[in-house]
């Protein structure tokens, strides 16, 4: 196992804590996080039962924060994974097949790229309605193009290598050459995009919930910030606490990504 550098270690520790928080949310904050659990607008550290306070309806902020981790990580990881998988398949086909297939696939990729990812997600959600699966679909729609381009560039250089020629002389079928010989070797640079993809997905998800396009049956950090906005002067902590959670999550993923791509570059 490669040793991780300090950046990646800090990021990994933060992320592990967040994942644990998401996994054990029902134990840390039992009950429905959307239910009213006490007096409204309690300040943080003022009450032992609600040590991050309560919002203007009397819902526990800590419960919202902990349960929000679930939605955030769930949507972010699945949409980033979907984006990477779709992107690397499109990129591999495009780079390997070349010719007309390459032109068509790359024009489609560019068409998706010209629309900002957030607008694409917003448009998709307003058509399909908000739920976790549609959020994943909507976010990955704007997120796969970079993976496709990076993979294609890598495949273009790999396909001229001798081991691809050797696979052809062995009579291996083109699709097997593309996906079994080339793609696994092209995946390194694409995988280092994963961090950016996850971070982007988290921010888009938060922004969508902030605008009220999140899953209404789940607490999300974005919707908590939106809720808190109306009482921003009286109770700024309602927006600041989930905001900090958002920053810490995105930061941890960036740190891991930087650390990993640094380690990747040191590879022969």
């Amino acid at each position, binding site marked *: 196992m490669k040793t991780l550098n300090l950046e990646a270690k800090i990021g990994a520790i933060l992320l592990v804590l967040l994942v644990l928080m998401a996994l054990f949310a029902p134990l840390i904050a039992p009950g429905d996080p959307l239910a009213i659990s006490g007096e409204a607008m309690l300040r943080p550290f003022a009450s032992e039962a609600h040590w991050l306070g309560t919002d203007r309806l009397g819902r526990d902020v800590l419960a919202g924060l902990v349960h929000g981790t679930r939605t955030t990580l769930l949507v972010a990881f699945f949409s980033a994974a979907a984006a990477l998988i779709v992107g690397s398949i499109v990129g591999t086909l495009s780079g390997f097949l070349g010719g007309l297939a390459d032109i068509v696939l790359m024009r489609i990729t560019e068409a998706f790229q010209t629309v900002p990812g957030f607008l694409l997600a917003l448009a998709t959600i307003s058509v399909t309605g908000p739920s976790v699966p549609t959020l994943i679909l909507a976010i990955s729609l704007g997120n796969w193009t970079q993976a496709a381009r990076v993979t294609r560039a890598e495949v273009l250089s790999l396909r001229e*290598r*001798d*081991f691809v*020629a*050797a*696979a*052809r*002389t*062995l*009579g*291996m*079928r083109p699709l097997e050459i593309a996906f079994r*010989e080339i793609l*696994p*070797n092209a995946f390194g640079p694409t995988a280092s995009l994963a961090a950016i993809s996850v971070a982007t997905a988290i921010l888009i998800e938060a922004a969508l919930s902030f605008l009220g396009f999140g899953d209404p049956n789940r607490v999300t950090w974005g919707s908590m910030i939106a809720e808190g906005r109306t009482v921003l002067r009286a109770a700024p902590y309602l927006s600041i606490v989930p905001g900090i959670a958002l920053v810490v999550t995105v930061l941890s993923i960036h740190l891991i990504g930087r650390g990993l791509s640094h380690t990747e570059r040191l590879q*022969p």
Partner: protein
Amino acid sequence: MDMSSSPVLELRNIAKRFGEHSHDGLKNIDLSVQHGQTLAIAGSSGSGKTTLARIVMRLAEPDTGSIHLLGQDISRMGGEALRKIRPGFQMVFQDPLAAFNPRANVKRILEDPLRIHGLAAKNEYEQIALGALERVGLGADHLQRLPLELSGGQRQRVAIARAILTKPQLIVLDEPVSALDVSVRAQILNLLLDLQEETGVAYLFISHDLAVVRAFADRMIVMEQGRISEEGNTEAVLANPQANATRILIEAVPRLDIVMS
């Protein structure tokens, strides 16, 4: 068609041009390789010998001319038909590290040709792969290794094992020892000669090193700027070189001068 009398490989009037003003490429290449024999193609870098190897292997397309393998014209073949005859002609590349998928271990490298062409039942793959590995002087402890974990000589042995697995009639050897340590060159060349004696495989041997050519090939061709400038029995060509390109190559091997004078 009488397979035994026709040459294993015959090239007729092969030409290939890369660009308008390019001096690379090939012009009017005619050659044939007989069963169980070795034809060496010698030439300095840029003479077109690797292009020729790639055309023979159908990795590159010639502009004109035809390639006949065992009397069958394969130059217009493609797709499934070409894949079906691939077992009959194999190639060993110059840089054995580049010729393997860096993520495939030796077991997978050797089982791939068996699986692709259905040459054996699935439960026999490992046994056959191991047999080929032992034939080239390696053993079961190498099966799980990655190419990066092998030495240069071991890698080329694995490449040879992969090439003989499909029992080809022709193996194209593209500078198979030039990337190797001098001390292991002789071992690899001897291995190739032993295999030829056992199986009667023919070699098309690409090299710029006339000392190696002399030890290895029955006949030789000298190429210069994409043309064949000299052709004949190896001993005869080296003893009495006619073309300028041959003399230059001979001068590049000081040892050979001493042997000949």
